[in-house]
């Protein structure tokens, strides 16, 4: 996230709101998914729950859940 959006690591608290505080917009949310897919080596672009993500913490919880689900399916 720091690299992709040229943010400071200190800005990325768990409660940091992506749109209101970090200044991301709809184009950025597309790029965010692409960056996360690369970082975690897993497709997630069509997951419904992506739309609910509002904070950095939401991203973390989403990824953790996804990884758990994928591990269980494997």
């Amino acid at each position, binding site marked *: 996230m720091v690299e992709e959006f040229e943010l400071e690591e200190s800005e990325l608290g768990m409660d940091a709101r992506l749109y209101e505080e970090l200044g991301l917009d709809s*184009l950025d949310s*597309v*790029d965010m998914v*692409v960056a996360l897919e690369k970082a975690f080596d897993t497709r997630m672009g069509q997951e419904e729950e992506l739309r609910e993500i509002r904070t950095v913490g939401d991203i973390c919880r989403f990824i953790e859940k996804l990884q758990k689900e994928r591990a269980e399916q494997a």
Partner: protein
Amino acid sequence: MSGKRVVITGRGAVSPYGTGCAVFFDGLWKGESPVVIMPEWQRISGLYSYLAAPVPDFDPKKLIPRKFRRTMGPMSIYATLASMEAAREAGLDKECLTGGETGVAIGSTTGSPSVFEEFYRKFLPDETVEDMRSGMFFKIMGHSCSANVSLALGIRGEQWAPASACTSAAQALGLGYMLVASGRQKVMLCGGADEVHSTVTMVFDVLHAASRKHDPPFMTPSPFDEERDGVVCGAGAGMLVLEEYEHAVSRGARIFAEIKGFGHVNDCGNVAAPGADVMAAAMKKAMKEAGVVPDDVDYVSAHATGTEQGDVAEGRAVAMTLGGRVAVSSLKGHIGHALGAAGGLETVALLEMMRREEALPTLNLKRPDRAVEGLNLLMGRPVAKRMDVVLKNNFALGGVNTSLVFRRI
């Protein structure tokens, strides 16, 4: 042309010499060649010209914030930096720039070729659009430069994107001239941009019109020279601030020159071969509109790119229109053929020549082709010359022939 008077109050440049007008002028006046070999092009089967005049690497991160930069390919970055410089030199305040009375006209050959390559490398051979970034389309769309500059500068006036390869910037200048003269806009940021890319050089090389003088690279291209062997593609952006005369005067702006005429004629004879008659027609139209006769003209900034046919055709056109007295040179010996940026960069340089009262020679021109012998072709060093009325020619593949008349005021 009836209407309001149009003057130029600002200039910006990104060129093969670097970012900014200062390094551009420095390189031009020192007569240094920025032409280099592109070693990675040598892998391309069927390409035999590996020469280019690219913009030297620089980091745009410090110069343009990410929120504007994410939709910019290299050409849009060049256009934005040049536009910012031009607006700064013109002293356009925020109200003027963003209030709706300033518009933009910026052209390029296509959207970013390097981004097209990036897209197709991922898309083919399996047809996948996974991993496509959101900024991709904006970097390759036809109006990438004008859209990105408008976004970055906060433009609320008219946005235009005339794309015509080698005449993109000249058309943008002509268009801006008409929009200000008609009263639709008070100020227009006009010019063009382009990138160096193997697929662009390929266009010329396939037609045997690209230079293959690799050893050494810095003596090519040589417009008008009997040993010339074709174009070398260059990159960058040249931007001008065009402004309604009364508006410029009332805010105490510095005026570089007035645009007095724009000749614009299509050549339907052949899509690639240049025609002296049509080039002459464009020059004559511009001069008629400007109310000038051949004796009034002090200098011609030629298009001449270093091709066998093009240079001779333009030479004949100049001879037909102006005779052999007028001083002529082409800047393509210095910066190569910057395509969409050519008219913009060459006009920025032309205005500086008028300001310094020094005409630049054609770099690398040693012995003029017999066919253009009668012309007053400047060679060697810059020459002291007062220039009040000048012509700027640009001609494009596809038939567009343009000529602009600038006058000192």
